[in-house]
């Protein structure tokens, strides 16, 4: 975990108070800022045909990333994207909704309390243009993964990959041809292995950003579904 970089809090100022006070929701930190920053930066290169129509964030926590992306998409000339934020932790869902509401974005984003995309796999098959995922990536004993509560925000089990691997397998099929997924991983998650697996599933995979934050080296992995 890393301490928040206060300069970036200015962008999404009104993150739900719940995120900070209740200790039950992951407050935005270096990884949240990095993920949002990278998606925003990469969006400058999107051609007219590449603006996402369906955006999903898995594990929205405080709502920082989904609010940043939804805000950017709303301001875009060719605006009009359906946004969905999911989190396994109900308190996080409430925090996400509050953050969105503080930025008048709650009309544009659905928030659902569920396990990744399990309830949407049929309906969203090949339908999602953009996925953001800041997973629980910390290496922990396996039993911490299913403990619930705030631990769901960081507990990643063996190699910190328990949730990452499960979600990647589930989500791969929901991404549209040419659709993209951006995900945070740390060095210990063995990002090369994660990328190889996604290449086998028909994705182009690359590390598009790296940042040192306290004791962790954060990477942003980008996957693009090959047509």
């Amino acid at each position, binding site marked *: 975990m890393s301490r928040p970089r206060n300069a970036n809090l200015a962008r999404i100022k009104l993150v739900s108070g719940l995120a900070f006070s209740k200790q039950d929701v992951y407050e935005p930190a270096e990884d949240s800022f990095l993920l949002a920053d990278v998606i925003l930066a990469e969006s400058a290169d999107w051609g007219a045909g590449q603006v996402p129509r369906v955006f999903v964030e898995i594990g929205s926590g405080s709502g920082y990333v989904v609010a940043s992306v939804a805000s950017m998409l709303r301001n875009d000339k060719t605006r*009009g994207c359906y946004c969905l934020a999911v989190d396994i932790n109900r308190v996080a869902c*409430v925090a996400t*909704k509050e953050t969105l509401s503080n930025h008048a974005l709650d*009309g544009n984003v659905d928030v659902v309390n569920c396990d990744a995309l*399990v309830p949407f796999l049929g309906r969203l098959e090949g339908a999602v243009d953009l996925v953001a995922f800041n997973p629980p990536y910390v290496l922990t004993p396996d039993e911490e993964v299913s403990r619930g509560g705030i631990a769901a925000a960081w507990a990643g089990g063996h190699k910190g990959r328990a949730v990452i691997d499960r979600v990647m397998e589930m989500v791969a099929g929901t991404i549209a041809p040419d659709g993209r997924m951006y995900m945070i991983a740390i060095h210990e998650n063995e990002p090369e292995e994660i990328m190889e697996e996604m290449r086998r599933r028909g994705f182009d995979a690359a590390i598009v950003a790296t940042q040192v934050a306290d004791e962790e080296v954060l990477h942003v992995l980008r996957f693009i579904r090959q047509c």
Partner: protein
Amino acid sequence: ECHIKGVTNKYPFKVEAEQVENCECDFNPDFLRRMYAKLDWKAFKDTAECLKLDGLPESVSEDMLKSDEGFLRTFHHILLEVEVEEGALICPETGRRFPIHKGIPNLLLNEDEC
């Protein structure tokens, strides 16, 4: 769709609403046209009717999407401006209720449903 293991008739959920909120949302016909392409229209219309929202046609033509402002406004209102604040999504096969509380549906399964 309902994701309880073993359920085959899983889409769409029925909806029960105890409290519905109306919010105002920017009218964007392009967005509506794109969303229409991704919707199961019958499911959408049936769900609207569960919520006592009439006014959606049985079927939608290219022309309606292109230039029928009355239709587009109704579509816009039902799609974007009506939100179930309190209620439930109900599995069409098992009747299992997934509660909606403060506008957030809880679709977490119990252990025996996975």
